[in-house]
């Protein structure tokens, strides 16, 4: 059984800032309440595989989930999640540039769920939208602040160094990490910063 729906939102941040937020896997653990653990299993310049433990409604403990992210056309992102209870979620994340500092994020959800979930289809859609909304609200301050930093001439691992008119930092994958990043183990392709 498939469940399809789309969630659209707009944020006052550039496409690069939004992409940084998507590919910055480490913040999942520190910022989002719905994630109890986040570990990068693999990442390179176009993809990433992660293991997380996520909070699911009516389940008293965090459950294991695997997330595969792929860069697709126009630097958009395809996410395939294997969730508990046999659910496979495919999310196409389209970042539509409205202006230099305004982006529309279109999430096209396509859920493959076991037949016994069929009666719960409306509830599932409700909870996924709620889940998406919570994550969106938790991410909002990061995107706005990151945009502010970039506008002031911010450079990763260096701080505010440039002028407001300097070229803006562009996201390159995989994004840089410290050598001992707590979720960096086993990722030989990660760019480690001394």
């Amino acid at each position, binding site marked *: 059984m498939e469940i399809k729906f789309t969630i659209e939102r707009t944020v006052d941040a550039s496409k690069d800032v939004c992409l940084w937020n998507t590919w*910055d896997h480490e913040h999942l653990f520190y910022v989002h309440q719905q994630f109890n653990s986040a570990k990068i299993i693999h990442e390179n310049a176009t993809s990433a595989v992660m293991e997380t433990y996520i909070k699911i409604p009516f389940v008293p403990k965090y459950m294991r989930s695997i997330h595969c992210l792929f860069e697709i056309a126009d630097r958009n992102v395809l996410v395939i999640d294997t969730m508990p209870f046999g659910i496979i979620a495919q999310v196409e994340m389209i970042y539509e540039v409205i202006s230099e500092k305004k982006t529309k994020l279109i999430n096209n959800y396509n859920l493959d769920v076991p037949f016994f979930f069929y009666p719960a289809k409306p509830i599932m859609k409700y909870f996924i939208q709620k889940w998406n909304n919570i994550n969106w609200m938790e991410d909002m301050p990061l995107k706005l602040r990151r945009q502010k930093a970039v506008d002031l001439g911010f450079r990763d*691992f260096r701080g505010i160094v440039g002028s407001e008119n300097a070229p803006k930092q562009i996201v390159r994958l995989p994004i840089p990490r410290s050598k001992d990043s707590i979720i960096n183990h086993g990722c030989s392709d990660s760019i480690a910063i*001394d």
Partner: protein
Amino acid sequence: MIEIEKIEITKIDKNKGYIFESKILKDELLIYFKDDKYYAVSSFCPHFGGPLEFAKKEIRCYWHGWKFDLKSHKCKNRQVNCKLKDYKIVIKKSILEISNGN
């Protein structure tokens, strides 16, 4: 070019520090008091730009859990050669003069 931002010393909360955006220095500053001395640093975490907060034993960023030493301003919980951008402070009566000079 050396720029100077002035701020009243009474604005600094000695327990929480004080954060404000300086148009003159083109940065957001965190000013705090530790061991009889005032310090001013950029409140943007040098890692990815997260908001820094003053705690009793360190400066912290909640985005990725980075911590910085209150005096040396070096990152103290990651193996990375990274420190906060700091500013010079001169106290004149009840005013802090914060500058980007050495």
